[in-house]
């Protein structure tokens, strides 16, 4: 118990120093004395005459006053009057002020390593052991290699589709490393690294991509739509952001069970425009559930840059709008991702609250194998992020400087992973597809009469026209 409290306190301290927006003073209460978040309101025109007058507004959370506490007026020490409305007390001001659409400065971004892989002096982060550090590093390399080879396989026509996580390996692996196996994951589709970290094998990835009989999804979905009940990773579905409210419902279940676990859901900058994002954040805040909302702001939603996606300062500021503690982090910094998720998880579970993490990053690859991003962004920009801003080489420098990794290790690792992948692909490619009967199962728990009827009709048709149907699907 003491250990857990200490852990929570340490996490809170770390969170405070990392700069989580929101309440980070110990012993918060709901009424009066909440945290002050100074918010600059307006700008002055150059001419000195402006429609609004800048001032400081203190955001405070007040408890809702009961009927017997309602007073018509109360004077604050600064002379402003205070009145009760449903929702609590608010101070009145005589001057008409509009909150500015944007803060003067963008929300700061938490990072631990500089671009050269050196820890920034004074940075606070969750320490990792050598073993963990190397596991994370090799996970990132494996992910990158897997992506490269599967992408090629699609180009060669061996699988029908693929999408990569190039540039987002730190997000994938480091966030997974900070979670436990009990935390339930609701991915979008650019997070196979979480599965990889949890033990999904390269063979299992390949099986899904080839849709063979070993695919847990039974060949029903496109490649990269992975899922694993055993690994607590909910099956990917193509529609954007639908998983976000699912995570909230799941988190509610965890809270009711009293489990020391949280729900985690990932989505991109584009996903934050969907209604499901807003619905989910609001629900999570009201129901006070342990869920981490992880936004991979990689700058692009297919061809749509963030300037065409929203006008807010990214995703992080939206958390506060719903009453959710939030942080912006450098998504290409493995240690920052690891630390932030670790702290977020602590808070989510111990305080039963949602946390929003916005990880800034860059989508180095095309959106998918159906996309050629050079059509809408300059090649030199892509190359810059692929090389100078690569999260793997940056983290590698840190690991190597610690004396934990060498060039020989690197060559060996890459060679082994590649070999394992090529092997897995060959095996998957040769395996049979799932049998025809699986076309009709799992629509319901038990096939219904109309489905049985349709299966019978289909089998008759196949009998009459066998040559029209693919031979690798057993009947």
């Amino acid at each position, binding site marked *: 118990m003491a250990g857990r409290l200490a852990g929570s306190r340490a996490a809170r301290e770390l969170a405070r120093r990392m700069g989580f927006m929101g309440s980070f003073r110990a012993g918060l209460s709901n009424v009066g004395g909440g945290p002050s978040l100074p918010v600059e309101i307006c700008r002055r025109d150059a001419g000195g005459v402006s429609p609004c007058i800048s001032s400081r507004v203190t955001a405070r959370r007040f408890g809702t006053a009961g009927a017997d506490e309602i007073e018509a007026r109360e004077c604050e020490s600064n002379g402003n009057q205070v009145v009760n409305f449903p929702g609590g007390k608010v101070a009145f001001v005589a001057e008409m002020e509009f909150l500015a659409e944007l803060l003067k400065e963008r929300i700061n971004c938490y990072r631990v390593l500089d671009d050269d892989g050196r820890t920034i002096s004074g940075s606070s982060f969750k320490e990792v052991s050598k073993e963990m550090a190397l596991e994370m590093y090799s996970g990132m390399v494996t992910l990158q290699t897997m992506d490269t080879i599967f992408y090629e396989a699609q180009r060669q026509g061996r699988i029908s589709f693929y999408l990569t996580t190039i540039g987002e390996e730190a997000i994938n692996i480091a966030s997974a490393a900070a979670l436990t196996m009990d935390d339930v994951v609701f991915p979008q589709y650019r997070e196979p690294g979480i599965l990889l970290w949890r033990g999904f094998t390269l063979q299992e990835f390949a099986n899904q991509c080839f849709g063979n009989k070993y695919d847990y999804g039974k060949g029903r979905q496109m490649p990269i739509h992975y899922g694993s009940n055993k690994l607590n990773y909910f099956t990917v579905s193509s529609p954007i952001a639908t998983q976000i*409210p699912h995570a*909230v*419902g799941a*988190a509610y279940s965890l809270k009711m069970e009293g489990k020391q676990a949280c729900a985690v859901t990932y989505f991109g900058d584009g996903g934050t425009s969907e209604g499901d994002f807003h619905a989910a954040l609001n629900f999570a805040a009201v129901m006070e559930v342990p869920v981490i909302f992880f936004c991979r702001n990689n700058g692009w939603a297919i061809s749509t840059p963030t300037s065409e996606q929203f006008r807010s300062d990214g995703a992080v500021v939206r958390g506060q709008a719903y009453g959710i503690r939030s942080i912006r982090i450098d998504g290409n910094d493995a240690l920052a991702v690891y630390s932030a998720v670790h702290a977020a998880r602590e808070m989510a579970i111990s305080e039963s609250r949602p946390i929003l993490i916005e990880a800034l990053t860059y989508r180095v690859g095309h959106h998918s194998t159906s996309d050629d991003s050079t059509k809408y962004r300059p090649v030199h920009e892509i190359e810059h992020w692929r090389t100078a801003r690569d999260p793997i080489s940056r983290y590698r420098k840190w690991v190597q400087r610690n004396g934990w990794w060498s060039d020989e290790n690197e060559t060996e690792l890459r060679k082994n992973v590649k070999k394992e992948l090529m092997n897995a692909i060959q095996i998957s490619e040769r395996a049979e597809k799932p049998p025809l009967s699986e076309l009709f199962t799992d*629509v*319901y728990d038990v096939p219904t009469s109309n489905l049985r009827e349709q299966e019978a009709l289909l089998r008759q048709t196949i009998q009459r026209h066998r040559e029209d149907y693919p031979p690798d699907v057993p009947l």
Partner: protein
Amino acid sequence: MAMAARRGATANRGQLVGILRGFSSSSSVVDSWQKNKEGIAGGKPLNLFSAINQALHIALETDSRAYVFGEDVSFGGVFRCTTGLVERFGRKRVFNTPLCEQGIAGFAVGLAAMGNRAIAEIQFADYIYPAFDQIVNEAAKFRYRSGNEFNCGGDPLWSCWPWWHYHSQSPEAFFCHVPGLKPSEAKGLLLACIRDPNPVIFFEPKWLYRLAVEEVPDHDYMLPLSQAEVMREGTDITLVGWGAQLLVMEQACEIAEKEGISCELIDLKTLIPWDKEAVEVSVNKTGRLLVSHEAPVTGGFGAEIAASVVERCFLRLEAPVARVCGLDTPFPLVYEPFYLPTKNKIVDAIKATVNY
């Protein structure tokens, strides 16, 4: 149990008696209802929303992982269907949600996917559309697309209540077109739906909440889904319907009977899957079919029934299948009497079909 089943079967059925006594004193209807009463242990007289309420109480009592949530459910709901639940089961199991149907549906999917029974309420059927994506793309496909790694069965059950333009829609056909869902229809059916291991949508006709009264057994019982019921036997024409429309159809049957036409009336109760065999048997007997629903005629569920029956009974049919349904317009307030498939429209269609 079978008798109890037929009893609770339709709060619809019981309703008919209540209403018919107001309009006519047809002895045959009362007689047939009396016949079915035989052997059933009496319950208390309850109206529809009370029967729903009772079902919810039982559902929460018998499953500690069942939850009821939606807009305004805490104080008892705008139609009183959730009365007493918070007091008995607490705010953690029965709670209000923010005003957001897609949130309600999405939340329900996640909750159910973790093995709970998520009973999500949509206040009016008309408001179900924002939830359509979560229902159609997520809930309905959850099990199939994951290869049964995951499911949200025992799952989201949406109760929907129609009322005028934006409170009167009957969107059941949209959902019938979605493999993976089971739209269905009072206490025994509701409990069966809640306990079904698939996502189920349960539609309740709100205008019958108070009007429909019959004796409902106190105990915990379920009705088989996908089993149609012959409410009235006849020889000249088969009428098929579900929900509140059955009341109207029953009245039409009464009027037709006076003119010497013997009508057989079937309550489908469940739309997906629907009891094709029962309808086929009936049409093979009568040779004529009429389907009636409030939802607009084009692409309505009546079209599916008509097409299926033509496939199965083509040579037996003496006349085209008649559909007496709503118009292809949004549900209009002052024009309601014109829009609805009223008993006179049905009687005219019965006669036209019989005299074809």
